[in-house]
């Protein structure tokens, strides 16, 4: 049998030193940002029952879940997402809590990704969930938090919004099987114009098919709304579009940089439990979105509590990667003083080191029994000062 005791499983990795600092800095600044806006932290278990993720509408294909069983043989999964566990908690322990609830989290999710593609199976997500409000101000609050999060990374960014309601309303007006609807969705999601056109042409020309054909091309800035308006077949859909336009304009004003806010009416991902607003955030230099979120007004009702909600998650790993690539790595804090103890002076040395720490210095005790090794260690680690503690006094050496 082969032994795998020296490597980590595919899709996972060890983080060392500077890499940890980058990640913790991101987590800390996001967390402070969330807290400053009144969000309270939640931690949910890493292990959940499979059933939590296997609702009527199954959002996570089972082949993408890490599964195991508990001592009673029941099927468990490693949490693939934080929003569904939070929905579960809201529908149970927080059922009587006053609304709206403002929750935030920072935890790892696990999904199996195809091997050898350079993807992580273990992703740290920091995010917020705003539960119990379907008002426009709630959407704007979440968008504004997303913009501030992106801004905190100090890099060129772009925030994109959409509304899945437009697509859902449009396909519901077609009299076709769910299978065909799913194909239409896939082709819109992939902006696969040739296949989408062929498919819709086979359904006959109508204002609805004409609008669906154009949906994946309707992305960009404010001009998108005028183009889309002419295409929308009825008042209901125009209304959704109009609401999105208002949100777009407000978001551009909140952001202060209209160019950083874009819209895409073709955002129609499959695993989405989203019902309305969709949010995506991009950083220059990363090939996938770093923020993903939206409004999910029906998810919590699948756990038996009918309450609207909106939120987003930030892929902390992706952000770390972009920051590491940009080359501005934070300095690893350096030890200021190394305290060396002569024989039988260990207690005095430990005390002396502690006194120095209380003055705010970073102090290490030398773990050697000869001064030469201690000095070599100080040299190697660029420690400016070595203090020797012997029976009588302190001897200071630079």
């Amino acid at each position: 049998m082969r032994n795998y005791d020296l490597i980590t499983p595919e899709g996972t990795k060890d983080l060392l030193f500077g890499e940890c600092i980058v990640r913790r800095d991101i987590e800390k600044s996001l967390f402070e940002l969330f807290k400053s806006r009144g969000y309270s932290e939640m931690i949910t278990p890493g292990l959940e029952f499979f059933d939590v993720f296997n609702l009527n509408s199954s959002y996570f294909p089972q082949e993408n879940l890490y599964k195991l069983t508990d001592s009673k043989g029941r099927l468990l999964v490693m949490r693939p997402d934080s929003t569904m566990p939070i929905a579960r908690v809201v529908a149970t322990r927080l059922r009587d809590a006053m609304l709206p609830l403002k929750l935030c989290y920072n935890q790892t999710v696990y999904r199996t990704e195809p091997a050898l593609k350079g993807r992580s199976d273990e992703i740290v997500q920091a995010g917020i969930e705003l539960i119990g409000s379907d008002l426009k101000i709630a959407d704007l609050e979440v968008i504004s938090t997303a913009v501030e999060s992106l801004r905190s990374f100090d890099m060129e960014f772009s925030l994109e919004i959409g509304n899945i309601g437009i697509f859902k309303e449009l396909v519901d007006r077609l009299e076709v099987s769910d299978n065909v609807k799913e194909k239409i969705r896939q082709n819109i999601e992939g902006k696969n114009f040739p296949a989408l056109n062929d498919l819709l042409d086979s359904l006959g020309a109508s204002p609805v098919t004409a609008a669906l054909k154009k949906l994946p091309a309707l992305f960009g800035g404010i001009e998108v709304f005028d183009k889309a308006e002419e295409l929308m077949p009825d008042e209901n859909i125009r209304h959704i579009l109009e609401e999105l336009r208002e949100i777009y304009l407000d978001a551009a004003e909140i952001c202060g940089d209209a160019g950083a806010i874009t819209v895409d009416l073709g955002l129609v991902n499959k695993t989405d439990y989203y019902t309305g607003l969709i949010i995506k955030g991009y950083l220059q230099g990363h090939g996938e979105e770093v923020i993903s979120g939206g409004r999910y007004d029906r998810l919590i009702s699948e756990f038996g509590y009918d309450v609207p909600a909106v939120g987003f998650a930030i892929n902390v790993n992706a952000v770390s990667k972009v920051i590491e690539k940009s080359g501005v790595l934070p300095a690893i804090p350096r030890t200021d003083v190394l305290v060396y103890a002569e024989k039988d002076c260990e207690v005095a040395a430990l005390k002396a080191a502690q006194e120095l720490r209380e003055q705010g210095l970073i102090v290490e005790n030398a773990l050697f029994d000869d001064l030469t090794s201690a000095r070599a260690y100080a040299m190697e680690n660029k420690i400016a000062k070595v203090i020797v503690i012997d029976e009588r006094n302190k001897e200071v050496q630079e």
Partner: protein
Amino acid sequence: MNKPIRIALTKGRLEKDTVGLLEKLGFDCTAVREKGRKLILPVPDGNLEVVLAKANDVITYVEHGVCDMGVVGKDTIMEMEGKFYELVDLGFGKCKFALATKKGYDFYSGYGIKTIATKYPNVSRRFFEKKGMDTEIIKIEGSVELAPLLELADGIVDIVETGTTLKENGLEVIEDVAPISARLIANTVSLKLRHAEIDNLIQLIEENL
């Protein structure tokens, strides 16, 4: 000027056809034509950079966003799948996926599970899954036509262009699986962050197809 748009081309025939197309659009592709062993080549007047890669790698590079766009066959897209935008059917590199057997062999007869040899296991699996047929799929790297001749497989799922190779080896197409042609794909974030530039390029391309 902005960083050039990086476009990955599938080495070989698709590369030649794409370079032909780019030249038709008026871009100076001298560097690509006289590439030597270089793999990243500038197309200066288009603010483009051409990367030459194997078909599967074109998708990998575009998915990760290290290339903004790519030209790759639908065959590779169907086999690999992945997350990117499939924007334009370029119309060249036309051929098809087909199921072929030894001439005169009645593939759908009997209840025994059929064995399929192919370079495209995912395409094959999906094709037979849709028919509700259990098959045994064997991945072959080289000339797939050998497998039925050596009686390793009952049939093959492979790319068929003219059918000459099949004919010369006593095989025939019994069913088409899917049409194939070259596609222009784009990274999902590049398309958003470099919308204007990519949009211009696509418009130019569509006008010249």
